[in-house]
């Protein structure tokens, strides 16, 4: 599969999947470079899981072309399965088997010899800190432990390409940080990772991102590129009365969205020309309020991209 190292790990053209009348994925053009952590950012139901399942060959596309690791999918899906790992959204290993038994089973499915199996299991126990848990039943593990086991199973065959579908949804913040350290370790050793998430802080860590909304690709690039390219300005309103200030801004020309974050208000506006009218409107509620331009973050990018698409849809 590495006969063409320059080619993208994943390439899709016009990828579409319909479930009856619902278009879950709509003409998606993707190009995922090798050796990177590539993020799929989007709300629930935006088509992230459906796309991943089509890329693995688990679902047939309604339309479009897929090439993964230079294989034609779904035609060569069975060959692909030797070279990918897939960590499903919900825990999909056997709860009534121990950690060791689960991994042993997966190792045998991939045809590892007895000696190689023992060696690989020891490596995984170390890397994913499962040594002490090896005889414990998977069903009795905590969220974070279970996730480490799932990842260990997904990378057992040393895949070139690893799919992770919302891997950290059931995990505490410390486990999430540790988990991402492991993901970067995998990327460093040459694995391509495709991670779907709806957490902004996770998206921020990815090398590249695709923002999906209602099955469509609304923005794509590295987090920095996305921020630079954004055609909007973010304002930070510091006030004692954030809720009233938010109401005051309702319907003001140039204001795209408003979100309260603690005692501050984050206002997304079209451009800097909106700064003065926003300041004026806010001070009618709270004369002491501070209103200033602030750095754009990924959430702003996400909101701007999805809002633009929503408006575009309404205009049609």
């Amino acid at each position, binding site marked *: 599969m590495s006969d063409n190292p320059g080619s993208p790990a994943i390439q899709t053209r016009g990828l579409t999947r319909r479930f009856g009348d619902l278009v879950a994925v709509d003409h998606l053009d993707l190009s995922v470079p090798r050796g990177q952590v590539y993020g799929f950012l989007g709300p629930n139901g935006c088509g992230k899981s459906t796309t991943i*399942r089509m890329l693995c060959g688990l679902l*047939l596309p309604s339309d479009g072309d897929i090439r993964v690791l230079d294989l034609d999918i779904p035609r060569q899906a069975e060959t692909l399965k030797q070279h990918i790992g897939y960590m499903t959204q919900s825990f999909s290993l*056997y709860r009534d*088997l121990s950690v060791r038994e689960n991994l042993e089973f997966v190792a*045998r*499915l*991939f*045809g590892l010899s007895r000696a190689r199996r023992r060696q690989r299991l020891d490596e995984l126990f170390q890397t994913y800190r499962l040594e002490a848990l090896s005889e414990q039943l998977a069903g009795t593990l905590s969220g974070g432990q279970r996730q480490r086991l799932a990842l260990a199973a997904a990378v057992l065959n040393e895949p070139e390409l690893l799919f992770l579908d919302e891997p950290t949804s059931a995990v505490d913040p410390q486990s999430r940080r540790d988990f991402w350290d492991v993901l970067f370790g995998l990327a460093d050793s040459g694995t391509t990772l495709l991670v779907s998430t709806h957490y902004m802080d996770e998206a921020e860590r990815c090398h590249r991102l695709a923002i999906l909304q209602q099955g469509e690709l609304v923005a794509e690039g590295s987090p920095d590129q996305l921020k630079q390219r954004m055609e909007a300005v973010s304002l930070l309103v510091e006030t004692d009365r954030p809720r009233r200030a938010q109401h005051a801004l309702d319907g003001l020309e140039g204001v795209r969205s408003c979100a309260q974050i603690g005692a501050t208000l984050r206002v997304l506006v079209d451009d800097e020309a909106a700064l003065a009218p926003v300041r004026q409107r806010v001070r009618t509620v709270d004369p002491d309020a501070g209103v200033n331009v602030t750095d754009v973050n990924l959430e702003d990018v996400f909101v701007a991209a999805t809002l633009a698409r929503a408006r575009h849809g309404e205009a049609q």
Partner: protein
Amino acid sequence: MIGFSPRRLWAVVTKELRQLKRDRLTYAMIVGIPIMQLLLFGYAINMDVRHLPAAVVDQAHSSRSRQVIDELHQARVFDFLHAPTTADQAQRLLRAGDIKVILVVPADFEHRLTTDQPPLQLIVDGSDQVVQQAARQLSQFPVRAYLNGQSLSPPAAQVAVVAYYNPDREAPLNTVPGLIGVILTMTMVMFTAIALVREREHGNQEFLITTPLSSAELTLGKVLPFIAIGLIQTSLVLLLGKLIFQVPVRGPLLDLYLAALVFIVASLALGILISTVVRSQFQAMQAAIFTFLPQILLSGFMFPFEGMPRPAQWFAEILPLTHFVRLSRGIMLRGADLSSLWPELLALTVFSVVALSVAILRVNKRLD
């Protein structure tokens, strides 16, 4: 498809066995169902009638009438619980359901014995067929001969019914061979019907289909452990049947096991097929029971095959249990071997091949 790998198949088999080892309930069912069914059909569900609640109206009050009543009591068909003085009182008891039978000894009993008139009258609860049947048997009772001092055995019946192969007409003898099939149907179909759906319900399937495991490997891997379990159950029923009810195996034991093996595979194939159609474990259970009922009712296990209407007979020929009941009765009771029963074996084989092929084609390697 990457072809078939015995190594992956074995991986699934060992995984199944490990899970089974931890599943106490299934474990208990494997042993519990055969024992329970054997005792149930062997002791409780008995077509031989004994101890029917009865009343006796003795209007003759002679030593001979008491002698006859006592003799009937000894036969244990009736338990004379009441001795009302009038027929009216007795009928009230019958209507209330307290008794099933009234024996009337008329006042002119002694006189009737010397004429052609029937000396005794039996009034039975005709709403119960079993009771009617028992009463008819009793009408053969040789009252006159008995009272004339003749020996009671052999009974002076006009028509002698000679039961071949089960001379004492003991129910367990007839029941146990078919019961092996009933128990295997019950457990094999149910366990495997649940097997594949469980993987889907627990989300295991989504992971499995991203591995190189093929649907044939998965399906066969799930079936193989149950073949061993089925043979263990067969042995258990045979052993207990021998120890408790003295049920013989007159034909070759190896042939019996071979027949059981083919029947087990047919039942497993049916279970796997169900598993590929249903959406949840609950539906799997329902579907298993749905296939179980016609098998138990139409196979000839409970009711004679010959007594069924033609279309029911044709339908029954499709059911695996029909063929196994013939095989097991043939081998165990008539001492037949497989060479004379090969059409039944062929029918089971065809059923297995068809069901298993359809099932493997239906086990999807995709989610849609």
